């Protein structure tokens, strides 16, 4: 019986082969010896891992070689094991000592302010697992030719230890398209799908990994395989041609121009993307850009001014700090809320930290002197909150007018993501609306964004959610202000027709999706869509 699991595409291409489940090493058990035995066991395991990494290093070139050289340097450094040996001396088993020592080391990386350092946590985890695997006597699985590696997540070392020249693919329950191993898979051309959920652990028999559409098919027959192969090749060609045309405007078949902007979390997101390919930045998430600069107005100003410079005169919409929910900032957000998504987040927090809020507003008003900049408030519920925030902006502008600093008054608008605010959009004195469909959908359908079991409920195409979006569009039209959509739905080919049908004319999407979104729009006939609606 053919079945299909849907996840996210992480590396393109198509692979068919026998599923091979790799389990995480933490689940095994080993016997606990004397202190001397445990000390020797760890020493052996570290030495074995070091030798294996050294021999791997000599075979690799380029980025993969650099990554392994880094792991080798750490494994050769006694400082790595000091804390684990101390725990062993205190009577702790080698595996427990190593695991907890490495978790402490990894935590140091994960809490780094700099994303480059945070990303290295994966390398540390890789080292941790290499040594653990040796402590438990687990060998690297000898993979059958063209095997589909199935796991919750896959460390880069396991990926590098597999001979991919004989084909194969990867299907992960967790994972992310931006992970290190996804990057390696793309560079080696290994098809990979992530985020398939818990079902992935039950995969067995022949499976098909479709890295174009991001799905896995179980027990496909030959007809299904050849159909998937054709579809995958068509999609690959479409993607290539979409990239070629990415700087052309997105106009529907019947001649309606749709603005397509990009969502930005960090400078790396837009590296390599020509500003001419988009109509500006529709959402810059400052909780990532400036999380460690909350009180540093000049550093924030430089960050915002850089986005304005990049956009070459197109508008740049910058969202004020949207901390809370799934984005805690130590010392700023509230710990221990029973339901953070329904708690103090976004503007609610900003209004409780007016000093930090005003620093950001000052930096934004100064950057607005460099080009068209729009300020967007997240998580607005009441018109009075919007007014309170506007009062802060006016005070900041008055301060700036007295100082000698160059500044300009930015357009002041809001994200619409709270259902009550969506249905009362007409009551907000906002300069523009941008609909955050991720939160609006989860709040309107009472289905958590991160809950795999309820993922099907959180559907932006639910008529109730679409009715809210349509209402916001109408309210915006009546007010003569712009309405855009900046949630994931804006980048989803399945949702775009519905959004345009209810009157949305501006979409802001992840930079990687931009070419295909524009291509999708070019193939739509809006007049026919609205006839049907």
């Amino acid at each position: 019986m053919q079945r299909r699991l849907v996840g996210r595409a992480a590396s393109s291409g198509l692979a068919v082969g026998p599923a091979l489940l790799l389990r995480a090493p933490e689940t095994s058990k080993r016997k606990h010896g004397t202190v001397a035995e445990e000390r020797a066991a760890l020493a052996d395991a570290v030495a074995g891992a070091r030798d294996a990494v050294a021999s791997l290093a000599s075979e690799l070139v380029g980025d993969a070689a650099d990554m392994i050289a880094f792991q080798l340097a750490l494994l050769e450094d006694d400082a790595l094991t000091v804390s684990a040996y101390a725990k062993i001396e205190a009577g702790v088993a080698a595996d427990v000592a190593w695991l907890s020592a490495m978790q402490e080391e990894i935590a140091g990386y994960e809490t780094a302010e700099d994303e480059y350092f945070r990303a290295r946590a994966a390398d540390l985890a890789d080292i941790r697992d290499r040594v653990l695997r040796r402590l438990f006597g687990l060998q690297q699985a000898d993979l059958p030719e063209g095997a589909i590696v199935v796991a919750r997540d896959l460390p880069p070392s396991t990926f590098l230890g597999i001979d991919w020249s004989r084909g194969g693919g990867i299907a992960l329950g967790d994972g992310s398209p931006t992970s290190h191993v996804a990057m390696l898979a793309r560079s080696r051309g290994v098809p990979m799908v992530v985020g398939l959920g818990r079902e992935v652990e039950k995969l067995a028999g022949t499976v098909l990994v479709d890295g174009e559409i991001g799905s896995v098919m179980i027990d496909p027959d030959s007809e299904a395989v050849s159909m998937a192969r054709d579809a995958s090749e068509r999609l690959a060609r479409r993607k290539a041609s979409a990239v070629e045309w990415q700087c052309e405007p997105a106009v529907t078949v019947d001649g309606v121009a749709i603005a397509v902007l990009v969502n930005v979390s960090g400078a790396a997101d837009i590296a390599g993307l020509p500003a001419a390919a988009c109509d500006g930045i529709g959402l810059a998430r400052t909780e990532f850009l400036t999380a460690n600069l909350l009180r540093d107005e000049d550093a924030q100003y430089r960050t915002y001014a850089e986005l304005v410079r990049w956009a070459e005169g197109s508008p740049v919409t910058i969202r004020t700090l949207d901390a809370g929910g799934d984005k805690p900032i130590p010392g700023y957000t509230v710990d221990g809320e029973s339901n953070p998504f329904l708690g103090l987040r976004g503007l609610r927090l900003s209004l409780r930290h007016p000093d930090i809020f005003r620093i950001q507003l000052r930096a934004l008003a100064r950057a607005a002197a460099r080009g068209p900049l729009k300020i967007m408030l997240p998580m607005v519920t009441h018109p009075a909150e919007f007014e309170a925030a506007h009062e802060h902006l006016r005070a900041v502008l008055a301060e700036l007018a007295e100082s000698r600093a160059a500044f300009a008054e930015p357009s002041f608008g809001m994200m619409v993501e709270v259902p009550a605010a969506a249905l009362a959009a007409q009551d907000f004195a906002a300069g523009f609306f941008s609909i955050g469909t991720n939160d609006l959908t989860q709040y309107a359908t009472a289905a958590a964004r991160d809950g795999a079991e309820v993922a099907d409920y959180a559907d932006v195409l639910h008529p109730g959610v679409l009715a809210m979006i349509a209402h916001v569009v109408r309210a915006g039209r009546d007010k003569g202000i712009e309405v855009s959509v900046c949630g994931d739905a804006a980048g989803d080919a399945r949702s775009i027709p519905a959004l345009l049908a209810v009157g949305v004319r501006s979409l802001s999407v992840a930079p990687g999706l931009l070419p295909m979104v524009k291509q999708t729009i070019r193939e739509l006939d809006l007049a026919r869509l609205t006839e049907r609606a």
Partner: protein
Amino acid sequence: MQEVKAHALLTNEVGLHARPSVKLTQLAKRFAATVEVAIRADGPWTDAKSPVKIMRVKAAKGETLFMRANGSDAQAAVTALVDLVNRKFEEE
């Protein structure tokens, strides 16, 4: 024994990150002198021959890297390290 001190600005895009850390420690290990680095003039000081410890410093782009060395070839060690930082770890 003389102590030699110097400092240099980290201007490479990623700061004292994985690859730069490996290069820095490999270079420091070529010298007999003890070599230490810090991101403040008054320390705390970190052994420049340990990549594990160097990574814990998390020195980012735009920070000043202070260096000090003690031993017969201390001057040569500090000069070589400053040069490596100024050449952006040959990364860019």
